[in-house]
């Protein structure tokens, strides 16, 4: 981690000024309406043992009742045992069963033929395997798939496209990571989950902040000023952000735009999906 990724404390204070009670109120109302509008009463999500999925599970339990929240823990053989324990803790605290689907056998079966695959390929495969399980549960339980990505990782592209990014609704997709932490505390997510170092848990000892090269506090302070407050590079540097840090984050946000969009369609006809065939997602009313 680069300690020189300076940021003005005032910017982080702005991020943290969010009224958590009001945020929970808006998110719960929106989530309930969006799920019920398409005829679902239940939701399903992967509960990794981390903060984001715990928060989504708590929000969903508040809206639909824990009995209507299908929580699936999907450990791989090298996953930290704490991850499964914390996923089960979330389910226990909410008073609903944790479904455990170990993904070791199918992942190993594939990589037996690709023994030289990198950590990233393995991590991506696991994320996409978990996605297929959630979509299978979705049909079995008639439950809509909730995503657990937060705004920080969506902007930085810190996700596997069509893996953990695949879902019907992202309830916390407009909360920065440090805000997700405050909201989790407000909702009573266990301290052991709120306080541990965020990790994708794709390999042993991995932490998000180590891999990204900066802390979530640093990233959130910068992203807030850059995205929410539309500040340009020169202003950000004047405010006290390191120029290199600004450039690196801007590059990541730009290069990962594709992960936030649907695939490109090449236009031929009079009316093309997503270009001039424009209907709301909630077309069904």
């Amino acid at each position, binding site marked *: 981690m680069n300690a020189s990724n300076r940021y003005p404390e005032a910017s982080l204070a*702005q991020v943290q000024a*969010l009224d958590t009670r009001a945020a929970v109120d808006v998110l719960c109302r*929106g989530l309930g*309406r*969006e799920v019920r509008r398409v005829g679902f009463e239940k939701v399903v999500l992967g509960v990794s043992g981390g903060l984001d999925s715990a928060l989504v599970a708590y929000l969903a339990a508040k809206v639909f009742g824990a009995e209507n929240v299908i929580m699936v823990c999907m450990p791989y053989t090298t996953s930290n045992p704490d991850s499964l324990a914390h996923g089960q803790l979330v389910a226990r605290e909410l008073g609903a069963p944790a479904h455990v689907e170990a993904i070791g056998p199918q992942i190993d079966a594939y990589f037996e033929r690709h023994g030289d695959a990198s950590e990233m390929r393995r991590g991506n495969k696991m994320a996409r395997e978990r996605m297929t399980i959630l979509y299978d549960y979705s049909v079995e339980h008639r439950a809509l798939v909730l995503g657990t990505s937060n705004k920080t990782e969506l902007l930085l592209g810190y996700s596997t496209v069509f893996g953990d990014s695949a879902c019907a609704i992202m309830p916390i997709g407009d909360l920065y990571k440090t805000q997700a932490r405050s909201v989790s505390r407000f909702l009573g997510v266990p301290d052991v989950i709120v306080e541990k170092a965020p990790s994708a848990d794709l390999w042993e000892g991995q932490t998000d902040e180590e891999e990204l090269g900066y802390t979530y506090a640093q990233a959130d302070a910068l992203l807030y000023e850059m995205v929410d407050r539309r500040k340009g590079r020169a202003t950000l540097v004047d405010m006290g952000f390191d120029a290199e840090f600004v450039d690196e984050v801007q590059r990541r946000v730009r290069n990962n735009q594709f992960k936030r969009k649907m695939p490109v369609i090449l236009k031929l006809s009079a009316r093309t999906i997503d270009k001039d065939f424009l209907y709301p*997602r909630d077309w069904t009313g």
Partner: protein
Amino acid sequence: MSFKIGLAQCDATLGNVASNLASHLDTVARARKEGVDLLVFPELSLTGYVLQDLVHEVSLRPDAPELARLAEAAGPMSVCVGGIEESSEHAQYIATFYIEDGVVAHVHRKVYLASYGVFDEARFVGSGNRVGAIDTKWGRLGLSICEDAWHPSLVSLLLLDGAELVVVQTASPVRDLHQGELPYNAVTWLDTLRTYARLYGCYIAFANRVGTEDGLVFWGNSVLLGPEGEMVAEGALYDEALVVGEFDRGRVRQARLTNPVLRDEKLDLTARELRRIAAGRRHGES
């Protein structure tokens, strides 16, 4: 003179006029039971807000049977209902249909379309080009739709044209929820409306949507403000409600005696200077 104003703070089913009409009829019946004289629905109450290409499927002519049903059900009660108007030239507009004594007596087309941030209205509908107060059996009133009221010039025109009540239909979603219970845009809305009411000594009937469309959560909190900026009636955040309060013409008089802003307006000066500024802008001067 006094009469009862009702603000129908409601949700809508996106793109489904039949379903929304049914809930409008329920609200109309309820409002009549409560003795409401003028009932105000939010912006696009008959259609939902995030319509995009659906505007072509939900548009209504002022003589549409759906509006006739509402007019019949309203009886002696007047109703401001929100929808997409289709003109005789087949253009679509975001509109307020003002229903009185069995007919659509006036149509206001939204003048200032919101096409920034989360909004993209100008892509799908045309903008109105007329502003003026209208005579109704409840006195002279001004109709405006959402972004219209973020332009003080438009609100001023309505008041200079004699309105004592300004109706503001909105579909305002949560934006910039930050410090405090109210999203930042709601704070701006309420401050702005209160300022209009106080400066001009008028009533403001602000009816806002609730519900969620495409991830936008509409915040409700409809208000009836009195001519000293006082809160006459207020709806809760986010929940459906029929908010009822009294319009009292005596209070308008009282406020205008204390604060004669309208009396002292220099219309010729304003018109002259506006012509000068507009001519400068046409010639590319700032």
